[in-house]
């Protein structure tokens, strides 16, 4: 199934990976990317080389990806995704709010503790605009908690053209995922400043 899906995605979109700022290396990483379509997750999964795909877990929105038994099955059995409750995740993602109440990042922290890499969409929701929306705090919090994990920005190109909202049949259009140079939280860097810098790093990859 995994191979069939991969073949299908390559046939339709090419799913080309472009490694610009870093090589595809098997170290623990957090990939963070722009988010325009539910297919983003599928795309970045397909763009990673085989050996990284097995150790990298994408984040999937619980409400969407558990809608039907098929979606649920494909996210758990094929993508090995981590479900995140979007409604709760958005609320506590607001800047300034304390992490005292139950942490929506819990499943991500667990995965990182297990040594897995994760794929994160820090905008929280899909955007329709040219540029991604401001990033939510989750990325900063995870970076603080796991200073050893490498943060890799990524730009996913064209996916929204393959299958716009509300359509069922995908159209073959070449898509690419560009991976950039790793980022770090600088000593004493503010949350907002870091998130804006991370966002800028993702946007910058659009034009390379």
């Amino acid at each position: 199934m995994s191979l069939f899906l991969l073949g299908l995605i390559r046939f339709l979109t090419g799913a080309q990976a472009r490694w610009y700022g870093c090589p595809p290396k098997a170290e623990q990483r957090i990939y963070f990317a722009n988010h325009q379509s539910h297919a983003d997750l599928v795309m970045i999964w397909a763009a990673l080389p085989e050996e990284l795909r097995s150790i990298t877990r994408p984040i999937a929105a619980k409400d969407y990806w558990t809608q039907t038994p098929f979606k649920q099955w494909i996210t758990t059995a094929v993508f090995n995704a981590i479900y995140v409750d979007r409604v709760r995740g958005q609320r506590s993602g607001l800047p300034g709010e304390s992490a005292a109440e139950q942490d929506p990042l819990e499943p991500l922290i667990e995965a990182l503790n297990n040594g897995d890499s994760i794929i994160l969409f820090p905008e929280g929701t899909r955007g329709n605009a040219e540029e991604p929306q401001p990033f939510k705090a989750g990325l900063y919090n995870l970076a603080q908690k796991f200073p050893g994990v490498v943060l890799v920005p990524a730009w996913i190109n064209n996916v929204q053209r393959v299958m716009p909202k509300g359509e069922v049949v995908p159209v073959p259009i070449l898509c690419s995922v560009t991976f950039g140079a790793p980022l770090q939280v600088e000593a004493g860097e503010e949350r907002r400043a870091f998130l804006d810098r991370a966002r800028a790093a993702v946007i910058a990859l659009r034009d390379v």
Partner: protein
Amino acid sequence: MGMNQFLRGLSATQQVGALFLIVFGLLAIVSVAMVVLSLRERGDDAAGEARRNELRYYNGLLRTSWLMVVVFWVGWASGERVATVLFGIVSFFALREFITLSPTRRGDHRSLVLAFFVVLPIQYALVVSAHFDLFTVFIPVYVFLAIPVVSALADDPQRFLERNAKLQWGIMVCVYGMSHVPALLLLRFPGYEGKTAFLVFFLVFVVQTCMIVQHLAGRKLAREPVAPHVSRSFNWQSWAIGVLVASFLGGLLAGITPFKPGQALAMAVIACVAGSMGHLVMKALKRDRGITNWGGEGKSVTGASGLLDRVDALCFSAPVFFHSVRWYFGL
């Protein structure tokens, strides 16, 4: 002369097989030469860099040639149906490249689905079933109307003409043009049964030769370009040299075609003119999009180019060649 006698004594199948053997052998020799060339030390200066770039360009060309010859060989060995399917896949990838670099809007989605999953398969099915009357008008007549209807139903009038023109063009070049290559396999010349693969070879050979000779001549002559904003290399002298050389070779190949030498020469001229002009038109499209080639954006950075860059001349020459042959020989 003895060689010629020997070749004439072979059956049609053996002759085609021998042709592939010769082509594979030539490609192997060129490939070995390229490897040797790439091993040679080059300076780090600008000249060395230019040489390396040139080498990369020819390597790309060589890779496509290998791919095309393998496609032809597999197609020939496994029959006309499989060959047609293979060309259908090439069409699909070429159209994918074309659409990727022609921005579409949400309202075009259904039309795109129609183009890729309905028009393309039907066109190639018409080739396989040799419905030539419908095959030649299906896209220019029926699809020409169907695509804008679907787009209009999507209720988005913004840049409507422009968006539809793009789509029509993509289908016309990548599907309609390309589908005429396997259609050649199904032409029935009296006394030429089982040898139509030679006709495809003839077309591809003269068109590709014309493009390569034109490229090399342009490099040597370094004349003023005719349309510098579209192509910095196109000029009439090197164009004429390309067409003449390729057509002359085409005339020499008359023995493997159903044509007499004069006819072969004329057909080669037609194919070369159509192909090289089509290539120029595609260059204008690329310039309009601000790109140098049709490959994925990642590839254009590394200097290699897309599939459509390699086959565009063929896409334009195949329909013209096909119709000329059918009309002249009354098939």
